C-alpha cells in the first residue's frame, strides 16, 4: 500500500525522498514511518509563517499607506473595507451554489458510482484518457467551484490522473451551461469557437502531461490512499452500497455531500478573501491602463481572470465588456484561463493536490493560454 505512509507526512521533501530517490523500497504495510526531522520541519514551518506575516504586513501597509497618504484617512479605510466585504460576498455567494451542486454530485458519485465501472469503461492510454476527461464536462455540467469536489471524489474512486486533470480544467468551459452563456454573449464567431477549442486543447495537453505522473507524487496523501485502494481493490473507500435501500443510499450521499461542502468551503472562503483582497488592493483601472499590445493585453487579461475569480457560467458577459478595449486574443485568453485557474479555485485545488502540483496547474494553463492568446493576436488579428 504505497500511499499509506503519506498520510502523516507534513513535508514535501520527504515525499520526494520516498518516491523518487527510493521508489523501489516500499515500506512494509504496517511499518511506522519515521517522523520528519524536527529541525527541518521547524524551519519549514517558520519560513511559512514568516512569509505569511510578511505578506499580511505588506497588504496592511499598502492599505494604510493608501488610506493615510493618498486618501483621507479613516473614512477612506472604511470605504476600502466595505469594498473588500462587498467583493468577498459577491464572489462567495456566486460560487457557493455551484459548490453545493458539485458537492451533491460528489456525494452521489461516492454512493452510486461503482469504482469498477470507472476502471472498466474509462480509457487508460494517455491521449484517449485526456480526451475523455476533456469531454466529461458535457456529462457533469459544473463550474470551476463545483468541479473540485467531483474530481476529488472521482480520484477516490480510482479515476486515472490524466482524465481527472483534463476534466478539472475543461469542465468549467466544456459544459452545456457555459457553452450557451458564451454563445449568448458573443454569438457564433471566433471568440465562441476559440474558447471551446482552446479550453479543450489546453485541458487535453495538460491531462496528457499528467499521464506521466504517479498518483503519489500528485495527489494529497489522503486522496492518494483512497485512489490507490480503489485501483488495487485493497480496501473499499467508495461508500458504494449497492445492496442498501435507496433512501439509505441517498442519506449517505447527502451526508457525504455535506462533508464535502464544508471541507471545500474552507478553501472557497480563503480563496474568496484573497481574491477580494487583491481586487481591493489592485484596482482594475491600474491593469486596464497597461493592457495594450498583443502580449501585454493577454497577460493583463489573464491577471484579471485570476484576480476577479468570476464563475465560468457568467464570465462571458464580463468579457464582453472588455471586447472593445482589449485584443481578441486577450479576451479569449481571459475566457480560457479564468475558468481553469483563479484565486479561489487554486486554493480549492489544495484539497486534492500537493502544493507543487497546484503550482503546475496554475503555470501550465497560464503559459499555454498566454501562448494561445499571443498567437491569436499576431496571426489572426487583434
Amino acid at each position: 500500500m504505497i500511499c499509506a505512509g503519506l498520510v502523516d507526512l507534513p513535508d514535501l521533501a520527504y515525499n520526494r525522498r520516498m518516491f523518487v530517490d527510493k521508489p523501489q523500497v516500499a515500506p512494509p504495510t504496517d511499518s511506522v514511518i519515521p517522523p520528519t526531522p524536527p529541525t527541518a520541519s521547524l524551519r519549514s514551518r517558520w519560513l511559512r509563517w514568516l512569509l505569511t506575516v510578511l505578506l499580511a504586513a505588506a497588504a496592511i501597509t499598502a492599505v494604510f499607506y493608501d488610506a493615510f497618504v493618498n486618501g483621507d484617512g479613516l473614512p477612506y479605510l472604511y470605504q476600502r473595507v466595505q469594498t473588500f466585504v462587498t467583493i468577498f460576498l459577491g464572489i462567495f455567494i456566486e460560487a457557493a451554489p455551484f459548490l453545493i451542486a458539485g458537492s451533491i454530485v460528489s456525494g452521489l458519485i461516492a454512493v452510486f458510482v461503482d469504482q469498477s465501472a470507472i476502471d472498466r469503461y474509462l480509457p487508460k492510454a494517455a491521449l484517449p484518457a485526456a480526451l475523455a476527461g476533456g469531454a466529461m464536462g458535457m456529462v457533469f455540467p459544473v463550474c470551476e467551484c463545483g468541479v473540485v469536489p467531483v474530481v476529488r471524489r472521482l480520484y477516490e474512486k480510482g479515476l486515472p490522473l490524466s482524465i481527472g486533470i483534463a476534466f478539472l480544467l475543461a469542465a468549467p468551459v466544456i459544459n452545456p451551461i457555459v457553452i450557451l452563456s458564451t454563445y449568448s454573449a458573443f454569438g457564433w464567431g471566433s471568440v465562441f469557437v476559440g474558447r471551446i477549442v482552446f479550453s479543450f486543447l489546453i485541458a487535453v495537453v495538460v491531462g496528457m502531461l499528467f499521464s506521466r505522473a504517479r498518483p503519489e507524487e500528485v495527489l494529497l496523501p489522503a486522496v492518494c490512499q483512497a485512489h490507490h485502494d480503489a485501483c488495487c481493490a485493497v480496501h473499499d473507500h467508495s461508500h458504494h452500497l449497492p445492496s442498501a435501500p435507496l433512501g439509505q443510499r441517498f442519506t449517505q450521499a447527502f451526508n457525504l455531500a455535506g462533508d464535502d461542502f464544508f471541507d471545500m468551503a474552507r478553501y472557497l472562503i480563503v480563496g474568496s478573501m484573497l481574491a477580494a483582497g487583491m481586487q481591493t488592493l489592485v484596482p482594475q483601472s491600474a491593469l486596464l491602463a497597461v493592457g495594450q499590445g498583443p502580449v501585454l493585453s493577454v497577460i493583463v487579461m489573464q491577471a484579471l481572470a485570476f484576480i476577479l475569480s468570476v464563475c465560468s457560467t457568467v464570465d462571458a458577459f464580463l468579457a464582453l465588456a472588455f471586447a472593445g478595449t482589449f485584443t481578441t486574443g486577450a479576451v479569449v485568453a481571459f475566457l480560457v484561463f479564468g475558468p481553469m485557474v483563479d484565486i479561489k479555485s487554486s486554493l480549492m485545488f489544495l484539497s486534492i493536490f500537493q502544493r507543487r502540483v497546484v503550482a503546475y496547474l496554475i503555470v501550465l494553463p497560464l503559459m499555454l493560454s498566454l501562448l494561445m492568446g499571443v498567437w491569436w493576436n499576431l496571426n489572426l488579428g487583434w
Partner: protein
Amino acid sequence: MNPARRLSAFDLTVIGVLLGAAALLGVLIWRGDQVGLQVVAMTPADGSASVSTRSQLTVSFDQPLDAGSAVRFTLDPPVDGQVQIIGDRATFIPQALQADTAYTVRLEAGVRGANGRTLAEARVWRFTTGRTQAIFTRSSEGREQLFVAPIPSETVAPGELPTPTPLMQSQQGSVWDYAVSPVDGRIVFSALTETGSSNLWIVAPGGEPQLLLDCGVDFCSSPSWSHDGELLIFARRNASEFGAAAVNPPRLSIMHVASGELAPVFADSQKLGFEARWSSDNRWITYLSPDFIGIGVYNLESGEERFYPTQAGESAPWQPGQTRFVMNEQRILGERSAIHLFLVDPIADTRVNLSGEQAMVEDGAAVWSPDGEWIAFRRNITEGPDATLTKQLWLMRADGSDARPLTTDAEIDHGPPSWSPDGRSLIFHKFPLKGPDIVISVWTLDVETGEQQQIASPGQRPQWLP
C-alpha cells in the same frame, strides 16, 4: 543532493513543456505581427465610375487608428487635400477632383493603429469621376420635376443649349426638395403625393428613381446627406386630427441609407427640428429649431447641445474641415432691421459678425467654397445709393473680409448659389422682376472672371452633379 536529481520524470516533463512554451512564445514575439492593420472598406470603391467630384476618399480599418499616425494618400493625377483621422477611418478631403477623370489612389503603408499594428502594404485602387452636370427643378405636366443638364465647357448661346433630361416621372409626385450625395452623386428627393403627404425617393445618376421611404400619411422632407454618403437626416411631420402632415411640427429622423434602418435623431420625441446640416466630421449637425426659434447645434455622439436664437429661418452650413458654421440673424439698427451673417464656433462658443456691425443689408443663403476659405451668399443692400429690392450674389472670405458683389443686376433676383466641386464656379437661378416673359432660368458664374453661362430655361433651385 543535486537539486536536479530530486526532480521526477514528471517534474522534468512539466518544466520541459513550460520551457518549450516559453521558447515558442519568444519565437512568436520575434516573428511579430503577421496580420497587420486590415483595410475593411474603401470609398469610392475600387473600379467605381461616375464618382462625384465632391467625393472624400475614405479608408475604413478593422480597428481605431492612432490619431498621430502618418497617413499619406497620393492621387494620380495629383490632387492636394487634407487628411482626417476619426476612429477607425482615414479620410482624404481633396481640394478639387476633376470631372470625367480616371484617378489612381495610393494609400502608403505604415498607417498605425491605436494599439500599434501597422498597415503592411500600400493599397492602390482606382475610380473615375463623372461628367459635370447641373440638376434643377422645372415644372412639367403640372408638377415640379427634377432635370439634369450638362455643363458646357465653352460658352453656348441660349438657343443652342442641349435639352435637359428628366430624372423622374410624374407618377413619383411633385418634387418638394432634394439633396445630392457628396460621395457618389445619388439624389434623394421628397415628392408630394395627391393626398398631401410626401415620400423619400432615391435615384442614382443614370438610374431609375426608387422609393427610399414610404412615409404613409406623413410628410418627409429636407433630406441632408452625411459627408460619407452613408446616413441621411430628414424632417418628418406627422398627420394629426388637427391638421394635415405638412402643417404639423417637424421632427428629425436619421436613416442608414444602405439598410434603410431608421431612428429618431433626438431621444426626446418632443424635440422639433428640420433643415439639418452635417459638419465635415459627421459628428455635429445644425438644424432649425421651431420650438426654440433659432439654430440648434447637436453632437450626434455625445448629445451635447447649443442653441443660437434667430428668426431668419435659414439653415446653417458648416465650414469644411472645421467645427464652425455660418448662420444669419436679424439685427435692429436704429429704427431699421438688418439681417447679418455670423460665423459661430459652438465649441469655443464664439460668434463673429461677418456682415459688418452697422451694415444695412439683408444677407442669407450662405454657402462655403469646397476649401472652406470663401463664402458665397445672397445680399440686398437696404439703404443708400446701392440699395436694391433684389438679391445679388456676393463673395467674401471666411472671416468676412474682401466682400465683393458677383452680380449687380438690380432687375434680377438671384437664387441661392451652389459651389462647383472645384470651387471655381457658382450655379444659381435668376428671377427677372421685369420683362414681358418672366422665366426663371439656371446659370453658372465663373467666380474669377465673373463670366456667366445659361444652363437651362426654365429651371430653378440648381445644384452641381455629381
